[in-house]
């Protein structure tokens, strides 16, 4: 069956450093969504990408969908303590990635 893997599984950064998580699918995706889950919380929608090569920005967050629509990335510039949480990608609204847990050290 389809699998969506994310790397890295964990990432610890100093506040102000950049952070990137990568999402890779075993098959071509029609769309990909990104969610953030704070510790003890539930996933919250961040963005959706549907076009090959699409790039979207939200303040310090940059999201990219690969040309082949099999991978995606989320990049955070100058992390803040409010960025702490686990970031998940969701492929085709069915397959959640394994998640990347971000810890920001003040």
């Amino acid at each position, binding site marked *: 069956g389809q699998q969506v893997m994310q790397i890295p599984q964990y990432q610890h950064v100093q506040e102000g450093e950049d952070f990137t998580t990568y999402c890779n699918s075993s098959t071509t995706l029609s769309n990909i969504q990104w969610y953030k889950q704070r510790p003890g919380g539930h*996933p919250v929608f961040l963005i959706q990408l549907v076009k090959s090569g699409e790039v979207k920005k939200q303040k310090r967050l940059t999201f990219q969908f690969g040309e082949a629509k099999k991978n995606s990335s989320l990049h955070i510039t100058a992390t803040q303590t409010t960025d702490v949480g686990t970031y998940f990608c969701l492929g085709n*609204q069915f397959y959640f990635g394994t998640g990347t847990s971000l810890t920001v050290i003040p």
Partner: protein
Amino acid sequence: EAGVAQSPRYKIIEKRQSVAFWCNPISGHATLYWYQQILGQGPKLLIQFQNNGVVDDSQLPKDRFSAERLKGVDSTLKIQPAKLEDSAVYLCASSLDLQRGAPYEQYFGPGTRLTVT
């Protein structure tokens, strides 16, 4: 706008017992999802409803799990009998009509944390 409601928030049961979870989606959302999230993992889709019909239940362990959405609004998820490995957070989510083609964001409820002892 009220969010997705779930109850109970916490449940502790012994193995082989039964348990039921309830979800009330956002008003007007035709699509409802049940996920199982084991600690440290991503949510795993158990079942997806479009109104009161099942769209996908390929990952639902049907020998012990069942779900229904009789009137196309509220939904219940039941486990009978529970096993130790069912300990997880059960998340309910809803979104606008999936069949309209464009993917819509999912709104999640707070989840039910199940502990099976």
